[in-house]
């Protein structure tokens, strides 16, 4: 892939397998290169289908630092467009979510359809013939949009050199497991709440931190203590072997958190819910979904954890916003979703027993990174025993760092053109 920009940095050397250079977390030039080469020119998460279920629905979000609109037109087609009036550049939509027939720029009354077409120009007679070509001045679309299981990705400026199917690869089966927690295979994202969480630190700290198997027994002493008492045996074997981290390719990765026994599944969920899933998916697939718990990262800006879609938005080399969109399961008894709400609150969110400790530590990491004479950050735990499974995933143990090394292969490919 041709890397745009004039940077002469050798990213193949700065993003080594097992060591990342501290400048990747601090340098404004590196950050700009990441926006140009990763965020604006490869697959980036933008939305889930359920956020814009009906024609005319839209949400606004960001690709890197660029404001975009994700809309559904009257033919049910989804569009990802730069939120910028083609005339003088104001954003044409100023709501997080909504529904309507058009986006109207409040500066000069230019009106755009949900598919981006420029419908009307304010006071058109002031333009002479040839001064404005309405057909060419629709909103600018992302170069490529595609989705898997309702999860919508876009590449803003260029068509990526791999399809979304190639990008997702082996992680699709983990997404399938997640969706199989609903008997209809459908989830509802964000309607049940969004934690909007800024932190003082580079965006990659959260990408790495979403699949951190090593830290839990140190950072989350207080949360694990409560969980142990409330959940008892469910936490047994938390740090023992049998749980793995996977690099599934193209920067994506998976961390297994629990593999519940059938006994625990039956303790944890009602007979009614388990039967619903078995009827819908067959017993094998249903029990696979119920036994499994993963954290997964789809590089660069998206993660799925137990009850949430997590979206990472870079703000600057040292500032990031994370949004935790709670997910509800379609077609399940109410108590299942209430349970998902209470469990989510317990560990995530700004007042919870887990997340705030992580974000506090992210800030401390960024503080430490000011010492750029200490050049390397270590991510080499388990590198010498890492194996490859029959599907082609790199595999390490839960507390090793295979999954956190995964993004840097794709990072090198996109930043330096090195496979």
């Amino acid at each position, binding site marked *: 892939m041709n890397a745009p920009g004039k940077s002469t940095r050798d990213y193949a050397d700065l993003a080594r397998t097992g060591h990342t250079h501290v400048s990747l977390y601090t340098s404004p030039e590196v950050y700009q290169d990441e926006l140009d080469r990763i965020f604006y020119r490869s697959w980036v998460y933008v939305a889930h289908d359920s956020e814009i279920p009906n024609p005319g629905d839209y949400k606004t979000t960001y690709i890197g630092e660029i404001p975009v609109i994700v809309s559904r037109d009257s033919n049910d087609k989804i569009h990802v467009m730069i939120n910028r009036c083609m005339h003088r550049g104001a954003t044409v939509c100023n709501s997080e979510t909504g529904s309507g027939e058009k986006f109207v720029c409040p500066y000069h009354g230019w009106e755009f359809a949900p598919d981006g077409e420029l419908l009307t120009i304010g006071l058109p007679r002031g333009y002479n013939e040839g001064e404005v070509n309405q057909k060419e001045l629709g909103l600018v679309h992302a170069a490529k949009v595609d989705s898997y299981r309702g999860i919508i990705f876009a590449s803003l400026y260029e068509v990526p050199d791999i399809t979304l199917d190639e990008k997702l690869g082996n992680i699709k089966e983990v997404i399938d497991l997640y969706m199989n927690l609903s008997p209809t295979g459908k989830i509802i994202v964000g309607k049940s709440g969004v934690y909007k969480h800024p932190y003082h630190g580079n965006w990659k700290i959260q990408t790495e931190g979403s699949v951190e198997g090593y830290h839990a027994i140190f950072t989350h002493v207080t949360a694990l203590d409560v969980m142990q008492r409330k959940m008892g045996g469910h936490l047994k074997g938390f740090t023992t072997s049998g749980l793995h981290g996977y690099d599934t390719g193209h920067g994506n990765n998976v961390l297994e958190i629990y593999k519940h026994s059938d006994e625990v599944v039956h303790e944890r969920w009602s007979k009614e819910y388990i039967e619903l899933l078995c009827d819908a998916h067959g017993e094998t697939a249903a029990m696979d979904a119920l036994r499994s718990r993963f954290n997964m990262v789809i590089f660069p800006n998206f993660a799925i954890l137990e009850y949430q879609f997590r979206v990472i938005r870079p703000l600057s080399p040292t500032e990031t916003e994370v949004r935790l969109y709670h997910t509800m399961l379609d077609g399940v008894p*109410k108590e299942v*979703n209430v349970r998902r709400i209470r469990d989510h*609150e317990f560990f995530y*969110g700004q*007042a919870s027993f887990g997340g*705030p*400790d992580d*974000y506090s*530590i992210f800030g401390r990491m960024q*503080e430490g990174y000011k010492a750029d004479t200490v050049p390397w950050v270590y991510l080499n735990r388990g590198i010498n025993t890492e194996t490859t499974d029959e599907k082609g995933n790199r595999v390490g143990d839960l507390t090793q760092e295979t999954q956190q090394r995964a993004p840097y292969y794709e990072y090198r490919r996109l930043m330096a053109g090195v496979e």
Partner: protein
Amino acid sequence: MERSEAEDFLYSEARLLNSGKNREWQKLFTEDAIYWVPANDPDSDPEEHVSYIYDDMELLNERLGRLESEFCFAQQPASTTLHQISNVEVENGADNEVTLRSNVLIFEFRNNGQQRFYPLQTFPAFCEHRLRKEAGEWKIAYKKVALLNCDGEIQDLTFLM
């Protein structure tokens, strides 16, 4: 309940919070109480929507235990708060029940961290207390703290409100 009595109750609750007497504050609640800080929408249904905090008294007890632990890294250094209360309104209910509505401006500060210049944080909120008289004493059966910025970007809410 007269407004002056309501104000006295809320001020004394705030004094406990602001002087770090968390376990005495805990004793103000009834056994079946709920301590609620909604997220995104102050009028959301906590069974349909996540909250920042939706504690029964078992979980509140765990929360206080966490704050006392040396492993609560989000509270290193620990927050100190100042609760400024105004706009107190009293809605008398049945004999032993009363609802208090108030505005609270919570100032939150953490001193003596490695990271200097931690800014003073302000959290304005609409509060609702539902009090119940038990053994001659007013107790909190329900406390809701609806932050003005409950749908905004917030870094940390690990202190008591």
